[in-house]
């Protein structure tokens, strides 16, 4: 059962090596005229792959993801160096809506539902950018409701009044309505109960397996993200410092610092005894929440 595989995280290996769907190389980004947010980010996502982007508060996860969807200009930021390619296209030369039509879409940090629109209207907006036909929208709605049955019950209510979990599902469903090939998610677990987080990640893992949807997900909740990802990238102070398979990453004890919300020693590779002990403790607690 796929759900089981999500929970154990074992046996989830990346798909065979192929041309990357997304390639970020030497990315440097600034806000305003000079506030440097990213110094050097390298990152790839291959077709059908789930990549977890980890890092502590302010490390630059959100900035990296916004750069990938070319959303930085709308936040008075810009990419000052480096390149981003999605499926051979230069992301920095495409508008966010053009990228969405190419199959790259993002679920923003903090969900950003259209609060005064109903849940179903929120979903439909995802189909407008690609000019989906009426029939396509109806089909896609049914698919989203099959993935998140709760949304069907809430379809007529205002998104602003939905619970945090329902809003996150709405935001994901809305992104799925664009028929993406790469779904980018920024901290989908933020502020949600463990059971809700599990349900959401399970749905995403199923989409990945059944439809080959590639996923790039930034998370502070490393425990959840690691269980589900094929590969891990870690950002520290605007620089990517780790880029390896999730299995290998889990084996290394310096994963530890994430469980504690730290992140200062990730790259150093100094796996001390203390860290090992701490990992065992937090592994236990991480499992007990599920």
């Amino acid at each position, binding site marked *: 059962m796929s759900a089981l595989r999500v929970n154990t995280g074992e046996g989830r290996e990346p798909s065979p090596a192929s041309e990357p769907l997304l390639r970020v190389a030497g990315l440097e980004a600034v806000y305003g005229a000079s506030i440097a947010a990213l110094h050097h980010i390298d990152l790839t996502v291959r077709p059908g792959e789930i990549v977890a982007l980890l890092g502590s508060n302010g490390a630059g996860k959100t900035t990296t993801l916004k750069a990938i*969807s070319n*959303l930085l*200009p*709308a*936040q*008075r930021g810009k990419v000052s160096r480096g390149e981003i390619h999605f499926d051979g296209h230069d992301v920095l030369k495409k508008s*966010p*809506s053009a*990228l*969405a*039509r190419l199959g790259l*879409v*993002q*679920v*923003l940090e903090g969900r*950003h*539902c*259209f*609060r*005064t*629109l109903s849940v179903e*209207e*929120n979903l*439909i*907006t*995802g189909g*407008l*950018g*690609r000019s989906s036909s009426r029939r396509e929208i109806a089909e896609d709605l049914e698919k989203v409701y099959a993935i998140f049955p709760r949304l069907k019950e809430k379809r007529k209510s*205002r998104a*602003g*009044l*939905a*619970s945090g979990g329902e809003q996150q599902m709405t935001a994901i469903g*809305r*992104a799925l309505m*664009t028929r993406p090939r790469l779904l980018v998610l920024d901290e989908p677990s933020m502020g949600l109960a463990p059971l809700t987080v599990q349900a959401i990640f399970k749905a995403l893992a199923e989409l990945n397996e059944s439809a080959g949807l590639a996923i790039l997900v930034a998370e502070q909740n490393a425990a959840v993200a690691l269980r589900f990802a094929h590969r891990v990238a870690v950002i520290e102070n605007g620089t990517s410092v780790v880029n390896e398979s999730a299995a290998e990453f889990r084996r290394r004890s310096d994963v530890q610092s994430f469980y504690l919300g730290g992140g200062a020693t990730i790259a150093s590779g100094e796996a001390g005894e203390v860290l090992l002990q701490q990992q065992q403790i937090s592994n236990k607690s991480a499992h007990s929440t599920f």
Partner: protein
Amino acid sequence: MDNAFDWTFFSEVLVGGLLAGVMYSLVAIGFVLIYKTSGVFNFAQGSMVLFAALTFVSLTERGLSFGAALAVTAAAMAVLGIVVENAVLRPLVNRPPVTLFMATLGLSYIIEGGAQLLWGAQVHALELGIQDTPLEVSGMLISKFDLIAAGISAGMVAVLSLFFRYTRTGLAFRAVADDTFAALAVGLRLPRIRTAVWIAAGLVSLVAGLLWGSRLGVQFSLSLVVLKALPVLVLGGFDSVPGVIVGGLLIGAFEKLAEVYLGPYVGGGIEGWFAYAIALLFLLIRPAGLFGGRTLERV
């Protein structure tokens, strides 16, 4: 009988005020549409009203029929909307609101100047063929023109509401108005939506221009209807269509009542500033307006 309060007269004044208020709302709605999608206070709205009225009246004076002049003016307003959005606002996207405001300020003078260049500067009378005869409704005398103008304005508002409720562009508009950044991230084509809204605002200006123009005459001071809409926006909230409808009605009613009942004591001229006094009071009490800026929050 000198001391008895004349309720019929009061009602007449009140209804007259409300009907005028509907026309204030109409101008204010043009602002709200653009504010909600582009986040800019479009100072050029008044010039658009003037431009529409002047174009229409000049075309009819050159022998075009009412319908033909209306169609050509509507097309001109649509083109104006497309040009403004694409040539002026799109290059300035992501700039601070002050920059956008300055751009629309400049735009308002350019549109006025353009109108003058095109059609000359003389005053025109605009005849819509509606007789301004008083109509008796349950004892009250009501201006037939006001009644029809209010009816047209209400119809325009109804059409807009249906458009925003039931069309794709309308849904996209509401999404952008709700959360522009999310709309961008989910792939909505903002430039298209904003262009559509500028066209809609242009058509609203056209209707407002015809109604106000036939009441005040088509002249350059017509662009000052902006100043009438401002208190309405403060009262109703810059981002709320229902708000500015109610705001327009309130301002219209209070203004007329104040003019009739307070005017004699303060020596007249009260309608020039009374609306602003109300707006100022409102700013102090409820800065977001009646319905504006109220976010839907789950507690």
